[in-house]
């Protein structure tokens, strides 16, 4: 052990003591009983069955290849990670690793694995499983979507086994809040999957038709049965490693079944008919109709406030339009002018969006950093309020003129463009309709073009054949590091101008350097100052308009305790291990 490990917040003298005490207690505890994670605030009642639903059928049960939300939800319940972000406090907490230490250089992490933990088939969990899992995620042939997150500056994270319950992770360079990287990285059973990896068949392992006995994880539940197109039943994992305050093993629930609802309406109907116990990720109109549909006060509605998702109006600022998209290139000449973007922002009635589209279950935004990001959101920025006179002044100063009610640019062309939106998403097409109405007040002829989802995405990410687009994005994490791909000019969510080899503008270059800088800083205040600066640059330049952030809405059957909507995946079901049914009246 060459690097000196310290707890980041503790003075070193106390650390030594703590470490010694830790080693001592561990040595005592090891042979006697498994070292479970006790949640001291939790006192629930065991037993019961939970019926939930998924908006789509999961496509795979393999956590390495799950990319759709349904598969991710299920795999996150079947599996566990080394460290876990507490959705309520946003802090990183021990999970399969009972504690961790960061090296002085901020580049190496030492994780102590919880001992006595068993997989859902009863076989023990060891450092070999951790090593195996990271080998799978980093395998270039498997192309796991998590792989790119674990590769920093083109070099993979190095994982070393230091003992049966001690693993060291070496990062290629200092990385702020690297502990958050471990959240959601499922630990796989090497005793089952190792042969498949060697045989090269891991990519087709753990599909929906895999026999439940072969699907083994460390999560609170394990698979019992699957009926294609209908349901997925999970049962309690008897080997789960968490306990409540009374040392009662979690999870409380005996069984969870997921049925597949094709859409939110079908889900809401089943919920009111008593066939589902909880539904989440509701739209505002479904949320408000639930009360009227259910005849009694047996349900509890939960409004978790704004999440990490936000709706935005995207300007097409891509540099490759001139050659083959003359129409888009023509409208782009307006969008490239910062005052024009500013004027459009001033013309948007965000309050009306919140009221009419989200029935007041949303908040207007100043930047893509939503209130759910807590202290990362720059408090100096306020959402732009509707201000038509200022918008007109900005346009007039930029050389735009009005003939009658219609707006014309400096060269005498009428200002008219299209706003594309996803036709199946009611909120987004509603936003587009209202925006077109708002822009009409400036004399702009904007027409809404609803498109099927993938056709829409193809225009945004591949053909670039559009003027403006209404869409929703969700921040990957509250921490700035989770939003690299949005801010970096080379990121794949840098949608307004994709695939820049070099930052196209000085301010994009500044954002790039600030973003890279904060990533290596370990001081929270310095990082936050850099992120505030990025948000101010955004607000001055407005490469896209952040409109609103919808609230996280859910509903549960009233006696169900422990469920709360959360901003990070898998939302409400994250702490399903501590769900329980309240007894009696």
């Amino acid at each position, binding site marked *: 052990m060459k690097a000196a490990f310290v707890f980041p917040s503790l003075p070193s003298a106390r650390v030594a003591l703590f470490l010694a005490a830790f080693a001592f207690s561990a040595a005592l505890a090891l042979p006697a009983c498994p070292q479970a994670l006790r949640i001291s605030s939790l006192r629930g009642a065991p037993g019961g069955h939970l019926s939930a639903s998924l908006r789509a059928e999961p496509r795979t049960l393999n956590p390495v290849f799950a990319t759709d939300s349904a598969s991710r939800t299920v795999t996150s319940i079947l599996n566990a990670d080394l460290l876990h972000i507490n959705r309520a406090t946003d802090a990183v907490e021990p999970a399969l690793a009972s504690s961790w230490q960061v090296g002085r250089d901020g580049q190496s992490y030492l994780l102590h694995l919880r001992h006595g933990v068993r997989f859902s088939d009863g076989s023990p969990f060891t450092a070999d499983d951790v090593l195996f899992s990271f080998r799978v995620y980093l395998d270039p042939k498997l192309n796991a979507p998590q792989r790119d997150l674990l590769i920093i500056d083109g070099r993979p994270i190095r994982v070393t086994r230091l003992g049966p319950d001690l693993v060291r992770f070496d990062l290629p360079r200092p990385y702020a809040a690297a502990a958050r990287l471990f959240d959601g990285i499922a630990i796989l059973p090497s005793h089952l999957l190792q042969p498949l990896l060697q045989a090269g068949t891991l990519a087709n392992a753990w599909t929906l038709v895999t026999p439940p006995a072969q699907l083994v994880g460390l999560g609170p539940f394990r698979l019992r049965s699957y009926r294609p197109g209908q349901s997925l039943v999970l049962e309690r994992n008897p080997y789960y490693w968490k306990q409540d305050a009374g040392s009662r093993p979690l999870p409380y629930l005996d069984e969870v079944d997921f049925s597949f609802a094709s859409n939110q309406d079908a889900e809401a109907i089943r919920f009111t008919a008593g066939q589902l116990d909880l539904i989440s990720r509701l739209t505002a109109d479904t949320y408000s*109709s639930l009360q009227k549909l259910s005849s009694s006060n047996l349900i509890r509605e939960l409004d978790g406030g704004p999440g990490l998702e936000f709706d935005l109006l995207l300007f097409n600022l891509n540099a490759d339009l001139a050659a083959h998209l003359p129409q888009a290139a023509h409208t782009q000449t307006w969008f490239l002018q910062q005052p024009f973007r500013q004027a459009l922002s001033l013309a948007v009635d965000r309050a009306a969006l919140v009221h*009419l589209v989200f029935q007041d279950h949303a908040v207007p935004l100043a930047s893509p950093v939503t209130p759910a990001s807590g202290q990362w959101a720059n408090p100096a920025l306020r959402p732009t309020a509707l201000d038509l006179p200022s918008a007109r002044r900005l346009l007039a100063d930029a050389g735009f003129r009005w003939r009658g009610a219609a707006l014309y640019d400096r060269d005498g062309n009428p200002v*008219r463009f*299209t706003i594309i939106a996803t*036709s*199946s998403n009611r909120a987004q097409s509603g936003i587009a309709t*209202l925006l077109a109405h708002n822009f009409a007040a400036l004399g702009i002829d904007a027409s809404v*073009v*609803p*498109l099927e989802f993938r056709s829409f995405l193809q225009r945004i990410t591949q053909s670039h054949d559009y003027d403006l687009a209404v869409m929703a994005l969700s921040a990957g994490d509250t921490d700035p590091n989770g939003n690299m791909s949005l801010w970096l000019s080379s990121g794949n969510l840098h949608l307004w101008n994709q695939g820049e080899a070099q930052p196209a503008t000085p301010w994009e270059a500044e954002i790039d350097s600030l973003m890279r800088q904060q990533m290596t800083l370990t001081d929270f205040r310095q990082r936050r100052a850099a992120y505030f600066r990025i948000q101010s640059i955004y607000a001055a330049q407005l490469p896209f308009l952040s409109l609103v952030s919808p609230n996280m809405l859910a509903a549960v059957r009233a006696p169900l305790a422990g469920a709360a909507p959360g901003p990070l995946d898998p939302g409400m079901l994250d702490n399903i291990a501590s769900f329980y049914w309240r007894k009696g009246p």
Partner: protein
Amino acid sequence: MTLPRAALIFLVLYSALFAFAGFFATADPAAIDASLPYLPPEGIRFTSPAGQFHLRPYLVRPQPVPGQFAVYTRRGAAFIPLKFFVTTASADTTVDASPGSLHLCGISGGAPHFLGTDEFGRDVWSRLLYGGRTTLAIGLTASLAASLLALAVGLIAGSAAPWLDTLLMRLVETMISVPWFYLLLAVRALLPLRVSPWVAVAASTALMAAIGWARPARILRGVTIAAHQRAYVTMARATGASPWQIARWHTLPDLAPQAITQFTVLLPQFIASEVALSYLGLGVTEPLVSWGVMLTAAQHLSTFVEYPWLISPIWTMIPFFFSVHVLADRAGSLRPLTLPSLSRHWYKLPR
């Protein structure tokens, strides 16, 4: 009065309502009023708030409950006298009703909402009329085109050489098997992003006609073959009539009632396909209104549970299609359909 006659009169009156949508409408169908989302239908009273009888009806406008979304109360409702034969203010630019056009009724400083408003405070009654005009125009044109196409194909397949018949019927089979309305994703990409509403209408009409002909063609082919079995056709053939003459004077009259039936069957189907098309971004788009557009927005559970007036296109279309159907029945199409069979040569008499 017999049922068909009643249906005819009803149909004429009803069509007038949609044909003169601009006159009967009370507001611009695309005008957004953010202050009145989901307003329930407003009542009409012939009594004043004090309870006295007035010949001039009052519009009873419920008041929004402050602090709650789209909740209105009848308590303290405003009684607004209704005016008749009003001209629109110049600011009121309807999709096609020019400023200064005449309307049947209105109120000063706003618009009456007889059928309430939708999510953006747009007048449902006006949208219903304008939307009906678009939808019925598309539906009738597309059904007519598809029926004529089906008639032509059916007639050719039923009377031409066997190889052509086989070819056409396999084509029909292929057409019927493919879920066209969902596979036409590529068509939107062929059109420019900004298409004028009228191009969109023409495109969806053409698409519906191009897809809808197959099923009726198959039935009409069966009828053609049956018609060819009749004695007078054999007689005509024996006297040396050309195939064209036989088709014109003997087969076509036999086919006409069946073709009319097929037309009435297609008509309601096209309304449904309009909803599917709008999903692909192909159908009628704002600011033009159609019943398909209205129903696409209303098909959500919350809408039809909480705001039932938004599914008014359904209650409007059913009487229309019903009377069309009654009339078509009257046109003498009440005879069993003869359906295609394994090989039509079995039916044919030896030449």
